[in-house]
């Protein structure tokens, strides 16, 4: 079979070919030149000199920091990082935006492995949206995190709430500080509630009953959502469902515990009638259906950072409508507990060649920065000023701070942090099926199985009851 024709050397074709080859070589040359001048080779711990002369004392004055720092932040923290650069012109800051390990991604795990294997490239500071990231960062084979003691002043560290510090403490050592507290409260559209003549529910049962009412009286309006990768943290964590209880190396995953099943049965009719849709609040589809001018969010159990990040920035809800109420409780059970969605640990790399500046950066970000800060600061003094600003924010129908502050110590401690992310399991065993119409009660068992698989793959021993 003749594959190629016999081509007699055509002068014009040769000319064209030569032109192509020459152009290619020229472009290669230019590209190499550009790359050599422009790009940086490798990132991370490349700093010239040690930073400060004075030891960092107070949280607000950390002495002049200098040198260079590489920080990895998600896009929400980007303004905060840029603000640091502006306030500290002596520090050469390289900011890398990444996905923040959101939704249970394993980006940081793969990256840190890569850096560890090649022996270079670690950034100095990482911000993660995954609260459990420091847990594996502190352990083998990653061994990435530097103990935070000495990097953040002791006097400041004492002003983080104990539960928050506990989440950053692995095997007795504190490896991170949390950026914000993410307690779940009940977000209420006061204007709509008043217009429809409803009272704000205080218990889950009242909430569910209201949902049924809304489905018949005002179809199209919603009282919650179940399609986020963290929806189980809002509903099941608040309901004290034991999906992640750690004792040493053994994790208990009991998805059919009465605490779980009762919440699922409560939610099933609401998911079915459309008042708790299996859609993520951050998708364009959600915004189109319920946000902006449509303004169909009546109630929304959600974390503190929904305040501006969701209702204002993402959904563009009209001002004067949203406020916060105390988290829902289960009938008259006490103590009242609630769930948690995030918290954003800041971690310093132990490979950092500029630990002092790294510590100063983390300290500044968590104790000083307060310019349109998206989350409820975990550092108590800053929390007070943040709450004060929020109370005066005309976006809200009424002062939401009482509810937010009140809910902060209520996070249920029966949900522990493990090395594997549970969000992907919720997303692909439960949410996909919810979208297809399966009831949540029927999905609890697969959820438990999926979590057990993930736990075992991560090396845990699993107890199913």
């Amino acid at each position: 079979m003749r594959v190629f024709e016999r081509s007699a050397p055509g002068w014009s074709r040769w000319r064209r070919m030569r032109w192509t080859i020459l152009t290619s070589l020229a472009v290669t040359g230019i590209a190499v030149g550009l790359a050599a001048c422009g790009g940086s080779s490798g990132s991370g711990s490349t700093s010239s000199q040690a930073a400060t002369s004075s030891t960092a004392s107070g949280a607000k004055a950390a002495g002049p920091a200098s040198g260079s720092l590489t920080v990895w932040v998600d896009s929400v923290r980007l303004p905060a990082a840029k603000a640091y650069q502006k306030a500290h012109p002596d520090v050469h800051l390289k900011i890398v935006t990444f996905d923040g390990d959101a939704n249970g991604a394993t980006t940081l795990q793969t990256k840190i492995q890569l850096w560890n294997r090649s022996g270079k490239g670690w950034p100095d500071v990482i911000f993660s949206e995954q609260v459990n990231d420091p847990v594996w960062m502190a352990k083998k084979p990653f061994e990435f995190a530097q103990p935070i003691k000495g990097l953040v002043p002791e006097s400041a560290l004492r002003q983080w709430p104990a539960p928050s510090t506990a989440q950053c403490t692995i095997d007795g050592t504190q490896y991170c500080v949390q950026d914000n507290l993410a307690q779940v409260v009940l977000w209420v559209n006061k204007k709509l509630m008043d217009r429809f003549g409803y009272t704000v529910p205080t218990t889950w049962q009242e909430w569910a009953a209201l949902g049924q009412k809304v489905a018949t009286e005002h179809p199209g309006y919603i009282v919650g959502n179940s399609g986020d990768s963290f929806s189980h943290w809002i509903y099941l964590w608040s309901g004290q469902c034991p999906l992640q209880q750690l004792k040493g190396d053994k994790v208990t995953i009991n998805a059919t515990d009465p605490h779980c099943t009762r919440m699922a049965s409560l939610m099933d009719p609401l998911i079915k009638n459309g008042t708790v849709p299996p859609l993520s609040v951050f998708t364009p589809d959600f915004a189109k259906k319920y946000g902006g001018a449509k303004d169909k969010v009546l109630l929304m159990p959600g974390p503190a950072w929904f305040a501006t990040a969701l209702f204002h920035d993402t959904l563009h809800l009209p001002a004067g409508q949203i406020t916060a109420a105390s988290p829902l409780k289960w009938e008259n059970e006490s103590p009242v507990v609630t769930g948690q969605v995030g918290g954003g640990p800041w971690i310093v790399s132990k490979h950092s060649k500029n630990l002092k500046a790294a510590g100063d950066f983390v300290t500044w970000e968590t104790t000083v920065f307060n310019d349109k800060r998206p989350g409820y600061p975990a550092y108590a003094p800053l929390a007070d000023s943040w709450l004060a600003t929020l109370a005066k924010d005309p976006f809200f129908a009424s002062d939401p701070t009482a509810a937010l502050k009140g809910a902060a110590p209520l996070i249920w401690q029966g949900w522990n942090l493990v090395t594997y992310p549970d969000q992907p399991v919720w997303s692909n065993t439960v949410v996909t099926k919810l979208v297809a119409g399966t009831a949540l009660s029927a999905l609890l068992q697969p959820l438990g199985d999926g979590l057990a698989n993930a736990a075992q793959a991560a090396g845990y021993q699993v107890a199913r009851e």
Partner: protein
Amino acid sequence: MRIAGLGLRLVVLATFAVFFVVPVLWLILAPTKSDHALVTDGPLSFGSFHQVSLAWKHLDAFSDHIYRTWITNSLLYAFSATAIVLATAIPAGYGLAFGTFPGRKVILTLTLVVMIMPAAALVLPIFLELNSLHLIGNALSVILPFAFFPFGVYLAYIYYVTAVPRDLLDAARADGCGEWLTFRRVALPLAKPVVALVFFFSFVADWNNFFLPYAVIADSSQYPIQVGLSDLLSSTPSFNPAQGGGGQQVNIFRPELALATLLAVIPVAIVFLLSQRALVRGLVGGAVKE
């Protein structure tokens, strides 16, 4: 009957043409609209050029002009690797076609076998190899694996075997040319079609390769554009909206993503257009029949 047959033929061809082209049309038109207009206006409507420049401004501002770096990286990797491929594969094809050294068949078979095994499954051992050579973090960690292109060798081999007769080379040798001169004076000039072909395939393969750079590059400023696009996707609220309010700062929404994708495609499209004639005529014959 004939007309009906012809009509049916055209309908089928036109349907597929629509399938292939409409997404590309959408991509070209998308950056001209704002994110809101993308949803509300017709999908194939034209917005404004002003919107395009806005979209570019946002895209360029992302992470300190990293988009330009990504494109530059892709150009660097693709051109460098393809240059090496041309320098090694064309002679190799010639040597395998006309050589008489022992092991010729072995090398040929190995080339064919490795060609059928796409690189993705071999990326992990290649990573370990590169790591032991301390090349991780260096541009060579991408260029060198890219420079291995067995398909190019195979193409050159097939070409020489079928399109260049031995007698031509023997005549050159009879005239007193040594091996190298024979190659340079006779075989190489005759290889222009396959040079164009190998250039095209190698460049496109390098430009579109995702897995290898994804696995071996740790610093996002060294990413080629394909991996950069995935980085863009995951760092911006449009598809990773858990970034939530950060969208305002990052400003990468759907038109920006569309623009990013479109610009990432242009270099390959240019190479494709340049190589069009060689492709259609050189590979398996064009319109000319025996």
